């Protein structure tokens, strides 16, 4: 039986999570859920970074993950503020209904 | 290989069970201590009838809470309503698992540390567990489907995450001096005597004060307990909870109190280290303290006013004298003395928690938030900068 986990399993898990994030981003219509799918994609990429850092025996991947987390925090703050403003003006959280710039 | 594996697992399980049992008893009796101290501050006896001086009151409370009707209102969101107290108490108990109570001890054939596990990121683990504890309160407030609970839950969570910032900065300053994140090594760097403690020798007085103030807010204690104040918001986020779930929230609050007091002891007051080295007689201080209180109790027992006290005071006096004698046995001194110092320091900080609850009024919510963002956070940042500057100068 297997005694250790092959590194490709971690990369496959990262790909699965990323694909699920893309599916959520494309199929859901509640803007907060779409935003959470973006966070899911960022987490999948973080896992990929840390795995490759293990593979190359260096901690540069960890540093990149750290910066991705920091940027995700800043983006979440500003993004949620924008969502609050859109909700105040349009009264809905459904992205299909925010279409006042459509022809 | 298998033998080491097995004994490690068995020793860990035994340690976990011992710590869990002691912690649960301490939580129950911490409530007794709180009620007694607040009562004596307000010049009244406190719990007195159930057992001698109310010592069986926590048992009565536990029986009452277990046998109360466990009501789940029909209008709540069942999944989150049931998950919230579970989350709260799990995260509160998780942080106790990395706290060191003493040095290496030898029990029979096993040599082990008086700590469930030592992580080299121990401080970060405790911070992570307290960050996750916010979810229990936020979800409880939201799932109860009740205006007061929602407001209480939101206010409490906002307060907890706002005060996490000055707390983390206040933790970072003694970490610069001790140069390690592992809680066991943190205590080892403060060995030698009270002039090595981070509070005295490291000069971290401002960090200590900021940490204690932030700890009050993190655990929702007076003067920061607006989210669960009874005359403001009915009962805040635990309005709709009854029986064991309500008890879980209370246990989580007291467990958080014990965790932050233990962290203050480890970071600033030297953990389980004695205030001056053993060669100069510090191992006689605990027996002296216990013997003194035993004699005081025997003296008062002779002239007791109430009938039962003629029996209970001398009984407790004799128990204290026996404990003082136990402290002089060299075989148990190896683990009993460090445990005594750790519990004494943590107990002193818990007493300050209870003392302040009996004394101060509570802050209004906007005063509370303004205090952290405009007052505590800049002071904590400045303190960290100055500490970093002084550490860099010292190592030049």
């Amino acid at each position: 039986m297997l005694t250790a986990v092959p590194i490709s399993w971690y990369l496959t898990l990262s790909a699965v999570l990323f694909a699920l994030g893309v599916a959520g981003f494309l199929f859901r219509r509640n803007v907060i859920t779409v935003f959470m799918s973006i966070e899911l994609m960022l987490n999948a990429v973080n896992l990929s970074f840390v795995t490759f850092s293990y593979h190359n025996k260096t901690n540069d991947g960890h540093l990149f993950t750290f910066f991705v987390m920091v940027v995700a925090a800043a983006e979440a703050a500003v993004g949620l503020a924008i969502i609050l403003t859109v909700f105040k003006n349009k009264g809905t959280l459904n992205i299909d209904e925010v279409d006042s710039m459509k022809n | 290989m298998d033998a080491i594996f097995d004994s490690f697992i068995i020793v860990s399980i035994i340690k976990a069970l011992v710590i869990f049992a002691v912690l649960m008893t301490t939580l129950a009796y911490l409530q007794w201590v709180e009620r007694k101290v607040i009562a004596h501050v307000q010049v009244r006896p406190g719990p007195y009838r159930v057992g001698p001086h109310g010592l069986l009151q926590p048992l009565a409370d536990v029986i009452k809470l277990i046998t109360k009707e466990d009501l789940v209102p029909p209008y709540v969101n069942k999944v989150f309503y049931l998950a919230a107290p579970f989350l709260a108490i799990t995260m509160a108990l998780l942080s106790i698992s990395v706290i060191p109570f003493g040095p290496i001890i030898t029990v029979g054939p096993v040599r082990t540390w008086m700590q469930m596990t030592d992580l080299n990121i121990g401080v970060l683990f405790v911070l992570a567990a307290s960050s996750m504890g916010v979810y229990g309160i936020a979800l409880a407030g939201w799932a109860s489907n009740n205006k007061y609970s929602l407001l209480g839950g939101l206010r409490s969570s906002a307060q907890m995450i706002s005060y996490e910032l000055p707390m983390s900065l206040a933790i970072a300053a003694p970490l610069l001096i001790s140069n390690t994140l592992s809680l066991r090594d943190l205590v080892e760097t403060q060995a030698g005597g009270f002039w090595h403690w981070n509070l005295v020798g490291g000069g971290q007085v401002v960090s200590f004060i900021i940490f204690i103030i932030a700890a009050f807010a993190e655990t929702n204690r007076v003067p920061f307990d607006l989210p669960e104040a009874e005359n403001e918001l009915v009962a805040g986020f635990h309005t709709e909870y009854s029986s064991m779930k309500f008890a879980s929230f209370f246990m989580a609050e007291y467990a958080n109190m014990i965790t932050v007091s233990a962290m203050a002891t480890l970071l600033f007051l030297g953990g389980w280290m004695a205030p001056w080295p053993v060669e100069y007689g510090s191992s006689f201080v605990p027996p002296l303290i216990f013997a003194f209180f035993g004699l005081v109790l025997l003296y008062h027992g002779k002239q007791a006013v109430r009938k039962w006290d003629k029996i209970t005071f001398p009984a407790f006096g004799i128990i204290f004298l026996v404990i003082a004698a136990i402290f002089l046995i060299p075989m148990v001194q190896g683990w009993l003395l460090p445990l005594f110092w750790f519990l004494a320091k943590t107990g002193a900080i818990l007493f300050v928690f209870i003392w302040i609850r009996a004394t101060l009024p509570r802050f209004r919510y906007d005063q509370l938030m303004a205090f952290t963002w405009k007052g505590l956070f800049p002071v904590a940042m400045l303190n960290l900068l100055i500490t970093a500057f002084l550490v860099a100068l010292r190592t030049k």
Partner: protein
Amino acid sequence: MDVILFLVFALIAVACAINVVVQTHPISSAISLVGVMGSLAILYLLLGAEFIAAAQVIVYAGAIMVLFVFVIMLLNAGAESRKGRSYTVQLIGVPLLIAFLGLLAFFVQGMSGRETVVFGGFQKGSPRDIGQALFTTYLLPFEVTSLLILIAIVGAIVLARKEID
């Protein structure tokens, strides 16, 4: 032991991720996402990244997701309605997704050879090593991201404040 831990927490991560996408109420999605982040933190510990695991729980699961939960509670977001969903999109999309994943997994397997992840195989993930790299090699990104956080704070306050009439 490593294999059991990896399988358990990878399954929990995938189940919670599917829950994020499938659930109608945003709060259920948010708590499932917290579950994903928790399991990923354990996987980071298996990969020797202890500082990143702690940072993931403290920053991502303990602060960013709390922000999401706050906004959902403040906006009183209800469950999404089912009308307007086209089933043809899902009928074509899900098999395409699975085919894409299969292709990706095949190429990933071919790329990485026989290397295995052993707990304790990577020693440079401690806070000391991360701190040394952060303040020497990566000093410029560090300073730039602190400026970025300042911009984000000012932007969020300006966007979300109440107008004083």
